[in-house]
């Protein structure tokens, strides 16, 4: 029973550490990428509504904020 517990904890701990490591690697890879997904960006046509985006960067994290305003 003790061996089973040890095995379960070892596997879970290894899996958690692997996923945490994968997250760290993904974070560092993301530092060179900018993905913007903001629907209806722009202003024009017959619409009275404008959508603007701002970028912020801090500690390797890029934040994108979308603002909606009326002309």
């Amino acid at each position: 029973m003790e061996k089973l517990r040890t095995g379960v904890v070892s596997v879970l701990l290894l899996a958690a550490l692997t996923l945490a490591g994968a997250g760290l690697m993904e974070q560092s890879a993301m530092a060179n990428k900018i993905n913007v997904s903001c629907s209806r960006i722009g202003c024009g046509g017959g619409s009275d509504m404008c959508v603007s985006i701002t970028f912020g960067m801090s500690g390797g994290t890029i934040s994108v904020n979308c603002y909606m305003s009326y002309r």
Partner: protein
Amino acid sequence: MKILERVTAYVVTVLLVGSALDKIVHWPLFIAVLEGPPLSLKGFASPVAGAVIMAECLVALSVAARQTRRDGFLLGGLLFALFTGVILVLVFVRPGTACGCTFAFGTGRADPLHAAMNGILTFLCLFLRHSMPEHPSGRTAGDAPPRSASLTQVQS
């Protein structure tokens, strides 16, 4: 098993302290994630953010200390279960969005792998809490006192 308990406790402590420090350093971003969609906690994002950071610190401290480790694993399991639930909701509602978990330290997006990591940590904490003895000495509440203590009582 004792060594694994200790290693897990240190891993959980490092993860939670790192995550809490990351949130403090990136406080404006954390507030923006809580206030923005789909969480939309406008008006009470700051108290929620403070509570999350304090909960992380509390769990980290209680897991690090040997005397409170068992209860710390229970609290840690509950906290990770809450995080898993929030991430799973975000994965279904808006996959890939920022979850506010971390910013510079690990992944901060709501994706299935992140949910899996938190789910594994939940199970790990609760499993260790279940398998740990009730007292750090190794005795549980229902156990008889040590033989030497019984003999001393009989002799006196």
